[in-house]
């Protein structure tokens, strides 16, 4: 029954995406086709939202406050003295989780749910820094089990190894049980209204799959900052959608795009100032996170004995004879 519900939910979200842009579903087009679609961007009229999409947005707005974690207290914690996760450690863990998500390449809903679950747990339970990585990984495992078919679930043994969260597969599964127990009295995990869910409802406005995927990528990057995720999910989604839609819009349909965005602002009861403020916050975080030098401590280079032996024989030691000048 649960399995069928999950499939039904996935089908619903896919169906909403398919309307008006049936060929633009997540997996339907290859990158080449998507690029061709991209070339056409700015020329086609953006679709307006259907009544069904608006109804779903209203439904998400109603659920939004129940699932959005209040993480502002993280900025007041000093992890060194208090031995608790603070904003910086949370951000680092979620950034690493994002890589794990890209590594497994599961649906974007998995990452969105995992961040939501991890943040809600951190709000409810004071987490020690050493457990944050394990918590984020377990949250991802829970999200994957919610969203994906069983054949695509990450194997705990490999997940622990890839995530470098410490502990064993058993520890990860125990953390999963702890999270489920602690969040049991809250609303159902699957019903969370994350920023991604709002963005998915706006997919039909995007001119191509590629453009929508870029927006999703930027949303995932912005979720890596708790300072950005503090804003309402609908605001985050709209700020990102606005940026990408305006970038893709040509002069011919700019007005149409502005009109749709204005309608959405009214629906979400937002002012343009608050939207601009969020936009600026997102841009700052995204530009910082999209290109950064890899942290050396995380890159573990363990090679086999034979390779190590061959690395110890550089050719520079091959000649002990003095150079002979030609002239």
């Amino acid at each position, binding site marked *: 029954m649960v399995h069928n519900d999950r499939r039904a939910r996935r089908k619903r979200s896919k169906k909403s995406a398919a309307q008006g842009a049936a060929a633009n579903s997540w997996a339907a087009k290859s*990158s080449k086709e998507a690029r061709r679609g991209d070339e056409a961007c700015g020329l086609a009229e953006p679709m307006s939202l259907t009544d069904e999409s608006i109804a779903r947005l209203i439904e998400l707005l109603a659920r939004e406050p129940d699932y959005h974690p209040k993480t502002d207290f993280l900025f007041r914690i000093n992890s060194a003295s208090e031995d608790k996760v603070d904003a910086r450690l949370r951000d680092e863990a979620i950034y690493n989780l994002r890589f794990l998500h890209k590594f497994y390449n599961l649906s974007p809903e998995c990452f969105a749910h995992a961040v939501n679950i991890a943040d809600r747990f951190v709000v409810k339970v004071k987490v020690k820094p050493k457990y944050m990585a394990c918590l984020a990984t377990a949250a991802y495992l829970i999200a994957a089990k919610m969203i994906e078919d069983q054949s695509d679930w990450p194997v705990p043994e490999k997940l622990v190894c890839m995530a470098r969260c410490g502990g064993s597969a058993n520890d990860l599964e125990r953390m999963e049980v702890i999270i489920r127990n602690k969040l049991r009295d809250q609303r159902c995990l699957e019903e969370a209204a994350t920023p991604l869910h709002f963005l998915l409802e706006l997919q039909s406005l995007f001119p191509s799959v590629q453009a929508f995927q870029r927006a999703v990528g930027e949303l*995932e990057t912005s979720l890596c900052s708790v300072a950005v995720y503090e804003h309402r999910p609908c605001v985050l989604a709209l700020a990102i959608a606005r940026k990408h839609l305006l970038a893709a819009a040509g002069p011919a349909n700019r007005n149409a795009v502005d009109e749709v965005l204005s309608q959405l602002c009214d629906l979400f009861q937002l002012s343009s100032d608050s939207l601009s403020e969020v936009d600026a916050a997102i841009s700052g975080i995204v530009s910082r996170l999209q290109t950064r030098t890899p942290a050396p401590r995380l890159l573990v280079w363990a090679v*086999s004995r034979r390779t190590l032996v061959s690395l110890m024989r550089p050719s520079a030691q*091959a000649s002990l004879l003095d150079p002979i000048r030609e002239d």
Partner: protein
Amino acid sequence: MSAAAAGKVDGGPAKDKTDPFRNKNELKASKKAAKRSRGSSHYRPKAPTELTQLPPLKDAATDQQELFVKKLQQCCVVFDFSDPVSDVKSKEIKRTCLNELVEYVTVTRGVLQDATYPEIIRMIACNIFRTLPPSDNPDFDPEEDDPTLEASWPHLQFVYEFFLRVLESPDFQPSVAKKYIDQRFVLQLLELFDSEDPRERDFLKTVLHRIYGKFLGLRAFIRKQINNIFLRFIYQTEQFNGVGELLEILGSIINGFALPLKAEHKQFLVKVLLPLHKAKSLGMFHAQLAYCVVQFLEKDATLTEQVVRGLLKFWPRTVSSKEVMYLGEMEEIMDVMEPGQFEKIMVPLFKQIAKSVSSSHFQVAERALFFWNNEYVTQLIDENNAVIMPILFPSFYRISREHWNQTIVALVYNVLKSFMEMNSKLFDELTNAYKAERQKERKREKDREDLLKKFEHLHIK
């Protein structure tokens, strides 16, 4: 040739040829038990070999030079070391004499007079110039087998030592010696580099290095003859023991090349050094060869493209140990590569690296992935990640799911993570495109299966 060298006591070779079930280790063990580890390369008609002890040089008050020459002449008598019990006393006299000559020429000034040069060279030539015996073990493996040592080494080592001391003496005059150390002498010296005794090759290397340094008139000839040896090795025999030592000498020569490089030297790089990478026995001299190549590139960076494309052309397809060596050399080349040169060859180079990373031989994959531990190489990759990442990404992504070796998977994880951190936008695009492709493939497979089922169903009907 002695009976032991000519054939095995137990009739080994004939038996080996007819018995197909004896494995390689048994064959080697039987050959080792039967063969002697020392060969003698002297076969001369029996000449008078009894020596009379001459007085020590330090005791000669006058006519020290005359005594010196007599001792040199005495040392021209060559002994047969294949028989350990023959001429023991005379051999010892000669050994002591040679030792004395080494000391004498080192500490005494004014020894090297015009008249002594021909005697010195004659003594050296008598002892070292000989026809080397054929190899006992054509399948010689340097990591498993012991080399065949020269039986007359107790004398030869002093002869070589003496030769070196003469060459390095402050009194040595190349203008006089050049009458005796001429092209014919050098040619015979070069042939000795095929000796199986590594000690002898080591001495020869130093001797030839000194001769090259001091005799400017012989340099072009020496380079030409080394070229001939290498070309014969590459295209005809694939058998020569002294390639490593000759390359070591060439390394010091290349190091001293004047700029701009002469066309002759560039041609040597392209026609000789690069094809040398093809040899089956590359492992025996690869370190020296890589050093030569890197030295060339440090002299003239514009040769980079030619070198890299040359290596890619000869890239090993089936021998994994060779591929590991090539990867090591490529990393050393990249370490000295200028960014401008890197941009010219990065596409074909990283296409090959993508294949190496995908190798199911874990050492090859590991060595290729270890490039990302090199700070300069990762900097070059970072500056060009928009071009390189799309080339590497499909291989890395596939390996992370399919490779059997967990160390490789962990290393790929490291590299993918650094990719994402360098350019997460591009990384996202690539993961999305990969996912779309994979889903298309799965859909195609499913459609194919459905069609086959329909055919089966029709057939059953």
